[in-house]
Structures are given as structure tokens and as C-alpha cells.
């Protein structure tokens, strides 16, 4: 490898080579992401869903964070409506991806349908890495299609295996779900503000647990993000303000937060 031709004779990879590399990357992302479909399937059936319900989530909902949130709320004894709400709130970011991707992907017909269904963290990320429209498209479709294939395949494997677990606690599956959530959260904790929001949300969820019906504490904690998002950013004190204010004052702060947030609601 080190004795390859000198750079002067190869001015850089050709367009076709770059696209091939992107497609290969998409395949490896698909396999790696798909593999944790095993944990989704197993946790879903251990949480009380049947195999078909787990597979509808993987095939139609097809967005990992929301799927884990749904089964997390159901497994924790929460209501089905609370589970659906948590899943939908976590899926808001996919709308954002669509806004970003719209100019570079084909619209209308089957492809218009497929591009929407395959819009997830991984496909949006690989598309964002491309510099030309061709590269963005190649990245989006490669990551989207391969993740879809492997995610559903391994969800089924996990769901079939999870069915035979009589006592999920003895297998540590409740701790596995907590591990899955922290692993999904981890890459997002890149700023002090993100850490503060995560900690404050965890605090709100725990404090409201004895008072609210199961599933709702998670939604109450979502207000932390709304409040933090409405606060002016880049203030050195923002860290303390979020942690100090959001938890005890969740109710009073709810109203102004909702009104200010309306432009978002109106736009969709």
C-alpha cells in the first residue's frame, strides 16, 4: 500500500471512485446500525409488545430513538398514548433533516415517498458529508437503504429471541434499555449546554415521577428543551439558569414557552 503510485500521477480520486467509497460507507453504516436492531427487537418483546408490533415500529416508524422511546415508556408501565407522544417528540428532528435534504433529493412518485421514509440520523449524516449533489444523493440512499434492510432484519431476530425471555430483569434487559438510551444520548453531549439540558431533564423526570401518571414525566422533561431553546444563548450563566430554574418551575414556565414556540407549530 505504501508503494502506491506517487500523488502527482493521480490528482485525486475520480468522481466514480468517490461515489463508490460513499456507497461502501453506507453499507458499513447499515450493518453497524442494523446490528443494534437486535437490542431493539429483544427489548420490544420484553417490554410487552408482540413480534408484529415490534416489526411495525421498525418498518413504518423506522427511526431508532423514537422506537426505543416508545418501548421504554411501555416497558416502564406507561400509557400507550404517552409512548406515542414520546416517540413523536423524538422524531421532530427528522423534519429538520427533510428541510436540509429537500434541495438535493428527487421529489414526487415512489422516490418522494422513499426519501421521506429513509430520512433518519444516519442517512442525513452521510448526505451532509457529500460536497456535490451526486455525492449527497449517493450517501443518502446508500445509508438509508442499507440501514433499513439490516435494521428490520435484526429487529426480527431480536424480537423472536426476546419472546422467549420469561423474566426480562434476570437478563438485565431493563438495564440494557437504560444503556441504549445513554448510548443514544452520548454523542449529542458536545457542549456544556447539552449536558445541562440532559441533566435538568433527567432531574425533572425523576422529580415528577411520583406525581404524574407513568410516561408523562418524560414529556414534562421535554419542556426543559423548549425553555432552554427560548433562553438567549451564549450567556455564561445559561448553565446554572437551566439547572436551577427548569426543575421546580416547570409549570409556570410552560405558558410563555408554548406561545413563543408557536411559529414552529404554525410552520409545519
Amino acid at each position, binding site marked *: 500500500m505504501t508503494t502506491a503510485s506517487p500523488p502527482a500521477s493521480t490528482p485525486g480520486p475520480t468522481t466514480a471512485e468517490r461515489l463508490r467509497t460513499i456507497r461502501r460507507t453506507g453499507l458499513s453504516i447499515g450493518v453497524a446500525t442494523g446490528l443494534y436492531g437486535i437490542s431493539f427487537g429483544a427489548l420490544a418483546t420484553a417490554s410487552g409488545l408482540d413480534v408484529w408490533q415490534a416489526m411495525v415500529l421498525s418498518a413504518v416508524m423506522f427511526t431508532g430513538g423514537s422506537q426505543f422511546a416508545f418501548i421504554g415508556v411501555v416497558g416502564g408501565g406507561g400509557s400507550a398514548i404517552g409512548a406515542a407522544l414520546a416517540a413523536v417528540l423524538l422524531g421532530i428532528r427528522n423534519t429538520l433533516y427533510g428541510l*436540509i435534504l429537500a434541495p438535493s433529493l428527487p421529489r414526487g412518485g415512489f422516490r418522494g415517498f422513499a426519501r421521506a421514509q429513509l430520512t433518519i440520523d444516519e442517512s442525513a449524516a452521510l448526505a451532509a458529508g457529500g460536497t456535490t449533489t451526486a455525492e449527497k444523493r449517493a450517501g443518502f440512499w446508500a445509508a438509508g437503504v442499507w440501514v433499513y434492510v439490516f435494521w428490520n432484519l435484526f429487529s426480527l431476530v431480536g424480537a423472536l429471541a426476546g419472546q422467549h425471555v420469561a423474566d426480562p430483569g434476570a437478563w438485565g434487559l431493563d438495564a440494557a434499555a437504560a444503556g441504549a438510551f445513554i448510548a443514544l444520548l452520548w454523542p449529542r453531549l458536545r457542549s456544556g449546554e447539552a449536558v445541562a439540558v440532559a441533566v435538568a431533564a433527567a432531574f425533572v423526570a425523576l422529580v415528577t415521577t411520583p406525581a404524574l401518571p407513568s410516561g408523562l414525566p418524560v414529556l414534562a422533561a421535554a419542556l426543559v428543551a423548549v425553555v432552554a431553546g427560548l433562553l438567549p*444563548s451564549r450567556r455564561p450563566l445559561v448553565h446554572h439558569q437551566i439547572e436551577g430554574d427548569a426543575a421546580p418551575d416547570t409549570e409556570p414556565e410552560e405558558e410563555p414557552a408554548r406561545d413563543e414556540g408557536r411559529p414552529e407549530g404554525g410552520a409545519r
Partner: protein
Amino acid sequence: MSMLWIAVIAASVLSFAQKWVGYQAPPDVLERPRVSRITTLLPIALLGALVATQTATSGSEIVLDARLAGLGAAVMLLCLRAPFLVVVVGAAVVAAGLRALGWA
């Protein structure tokens, strides 16, 4: 049809609609800084809350048990840059091990 089935189907269809709507909306929505800040922070808050409830609650009670040790193992593995599946399995093994030993 059970409540659970209705929730599975409704949440799945809504999730698809969320993806679809992004492609139809005018692109200038993105330029509203508050909108993009909230959409960035929302998954962080929800996942933080889910970590807490999944680790330390049971029904409407705060319960500290082997799950906390499992979470600790997950954090350690994440610090070591372990892949997702290793983190999840590691958390399960630690919690299951402690319970098998009767320590938690």
C-alpha cells in the same frame, strides 16, 4: 384492536408524516434560530429523561437497584468508545450478574 396496537400504528404513521413534512416546508423555517435550537435540544432532553426513568423508576416510585450499576457500566464503556451493541450488552451483563449474585 388494543390500545397498544392503535398507539403503535398512530405513532408510526405520525413519524412518517414528520419526515414527509420536512420536504414540503419552506426552507426559511430553518433560519429561525429558536426553532433550530429547540429541535436540537429536544432529543437531548428526552433521552436524558429516558435514561433517568429507565434507570431509577418503577411505576411511580424512585427505585435504585442493579440498573444503576448497569448504567455505570454503560458510561464506562462509552468513555472507552465502545460500540453501541457492546454498551447495551455490557449494561445488561452487569445488572444480570449482580442480580444472579443476589447483590442487588
